[in-house]
């Protein structure tokens, strides 16, 4: 049947075109099909990357196109690495990445483990838990900003109900100590379901017969968890950590919507600093150098992590 269809198509192809196609090798045909994608990738990914690398060595400013562009060598890189504010932004980013990953992994894995029990209505609960992940970050950011509002926000009232602290004193976005946590809470609320999904896939991939063998050996539930469940789900957990780590290292939208980097610079993560330098101060060369440093940092850390992940998988 398939052969007959192919023959029909070949017969329907106009002779001049058929002659041309017949003249192309399989390899040539493959290149013909993938070249639009490669060209697109070169135009929107590779060229901007090399262009940014070039700009990072100059004093170029996008708002002064007529100005002479000077080569500064490594001056931009030196200035960034010696800038106290940049290091503070990097520390803020690290703090944010650490706590969001920790909380999302703990809660996500726990939820996945509970859902995996397949209790009555587990499908409904799975769907419900996944809802935050499906919302747009812009919607989530604005929605939580209202929730955190000290005079009318439900979050402040809920905390006040439990702690008896007046709601107007619970200023999640204005208080220097609470503002970083306000972002961590929202990010955890939104992305824990994602970690849960990956962990759930890991738990469901563990063959049932291993547990049955453990039962025969009279291994306790605790022992089964530590010796079977956790080691076998670990590569999946590590994968979730990798995805969330990369995402949160470049976190921008939620911070921008909730605090804008404030109060002061307490929640100014690296991507906010980068945006300010690039599109508010218009230091294009300087911000390109910063972007390259961030790229190398994420790329390097991700590579080390992937190697560790492979080792775990091989065990």
């Amino acid at each position: 049947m398939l052969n007959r269809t192919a023959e029909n198509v070949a017969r329907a192809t106009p002779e001049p075109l058929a002659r041309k196609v017949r003249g192309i090798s399989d390899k040539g045909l493959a290149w013909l099909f993938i070249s639009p994608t490669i060209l697109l990738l070169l135009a929107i990914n590779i060229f901007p990357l090399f262009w940014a690398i070039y700009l990072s060595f100059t004093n170029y400013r996008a708002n002064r196109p007529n100005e002479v562009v000077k080569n500064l060598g490594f001056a931009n890189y030196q200035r960034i690495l010696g800038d106290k504010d940049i290091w503070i932004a990097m520390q803020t980013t690290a703090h944010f990445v650490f706590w969001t990953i920790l909380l999302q992994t703990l809660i996500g894995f726990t939820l996945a483990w509970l859902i995996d029990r397949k209790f009555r209505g587990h499908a409904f609960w799975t769907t419900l838990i996944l809802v935050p992940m499906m919302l747009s970050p812009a919607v989530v950011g604005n929605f939580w900003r209202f929730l955190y509002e000290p005079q009318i926000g439900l979050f402040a009232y809920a905390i006040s109900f439990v702690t008896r602290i007046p709601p107007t004193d619970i200023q999640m976005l204005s208080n220097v100590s609470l503002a970083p946590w306000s972002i961590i809470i929202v990010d955890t609320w939104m992305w824990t379901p994602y970690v849960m999904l990956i962990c759930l896939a890991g738990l469901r991939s563990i063959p049932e017969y291993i547990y049955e063998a453990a039962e025969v050996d009279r291994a306790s539930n605790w022992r089964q968890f530590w010796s079977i469940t956790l080691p076998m789900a670990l590569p999946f957990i590590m994968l979730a950590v990798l995805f969330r780590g990369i995402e949160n290292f470049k976190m921008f939208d939620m911070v921008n919507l909730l605090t804008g980097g404030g109060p002061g610079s307490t929640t100014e993560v690296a991507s906010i600093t980068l945006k300010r330098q690039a599109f508010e101060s218009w230091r294009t060369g300087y911000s390109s150098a910063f972007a390259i440093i961030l790229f190398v940092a994420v790329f390097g850390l991700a590579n080390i992590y992937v190697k560790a992940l492979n080792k775990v998988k091989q065990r």
Partner: protein
Amino acid sequence: MKSSLKLALGLTSAITASTAVSNVAHAEDLTLCWAAWDPANALVELSKDFTKETGIGMKFEFVPWTNYADRFLNELNSHGKLCDLIIGDSQWIGGAAENGHYVKLNDFFDKEKISMDDFVPATVVGYSEWPKNTPNYWALPAMGDVVGWTYRKDWFSKPELQKEFKEKYGWDLGPPTTFDQLKQVAEFFQKREIDGKTVYGASIYTERGSEGITMGAMDVLYSYGFQYENPKKPYEMEGFVNSDKSVKGLEFYKALYDCCTPPGASNSYMGEGVDAFKSGQVAMHMNFAFTWPGLQKDENVGGDKIGYFVNPKGPDGEQFAQLGGQGISVVSYSDKQEAALKYIKWFANKDVQAKWWSLGGYSCLNAVVKDPGFPASQPYAQTFLDSMAIVKDFWAEPSYAPLLQASQKRFHDYVVAGQGSAKDALDGLVKDWTQVFQDDGKM
């Protein structure tokens, strides 16, 4: 068959003709770019007269304040042709002039006999001139604006509050004339129950993202003796930006933020200020004068319930206010510069300027604001006039953006986040600004 052919030909001709006519009309349309706010709506209304008079249609591109600078500076930097006319912020003038974004208007003003002497001097310096205080004009003053204050006249006139205030502070509760008085009034109202509702002292600018906290803090610092540079030696900032007087001014702004603002007001600018005042949260409200016509008309807080006062004096009696507002310029990349200049000529006309004021725009033309009937024309007119007489503006250098970002960070870190001291913040600011000017080769 014949009649069908006739019909078809007739229809085709009609469609062709109408398309041609509409193409001609659209070819003459001008696009004016500005911020999306109340005065922009007034300008749309006003510009209908221009279309009536000249046949030139007007299109408008209004962008919310939060994206206004990003959007239009990108447009100018990329030599875009979207805007034929632009009402650009006062701080853009240096960059726009030096980078060739605006058409220089001197020859046009000479030819059309438009004199800058006919406009309020502060607006000419603030919105039109680059370099400052030289007769090089890049814009026509379009929308005068300045930071001032509104207050709840109805609360201030409550006898029981007046009595209590007098007993506590020893002077009659009324619009403050010094910053010390302002803080006393704000403290008095902070967390007070009025008409069954908890109210707060004052709404001030604390916004971090664009220019909010700089506009607010500078509004106070000027009257405390802050200076941008040594008047005798340009760009020398040490001892001027971070003088003892400036430090006291910044400490005052932080004290005002800490004691007397509504909960959660850590990122408040024009919109949030208006919301706080309109919702009856605050007794006093710092904001640009453009918000006043809208507040005056408000059913809940406007009319007899609202009063206006000029930015108060500092401890040494100095009194200044932060300039806002913009001039209108012709974009040098526009293909319709002739029509755009026609609009500027029309806009400079006295009758048009008078109508501009009546619609809610703030005219900068002397003939309008010095008219004997002007102070009584609106409840806020006199406050606007008095405020415009004491204005100062932020740097208008081509590098205004990094200069502004530096002050936003330093002020917010200290005032809102409470990091370091006022002296640290201003010392840091001198360092940042020096770096910017060094990068520009000006130091």
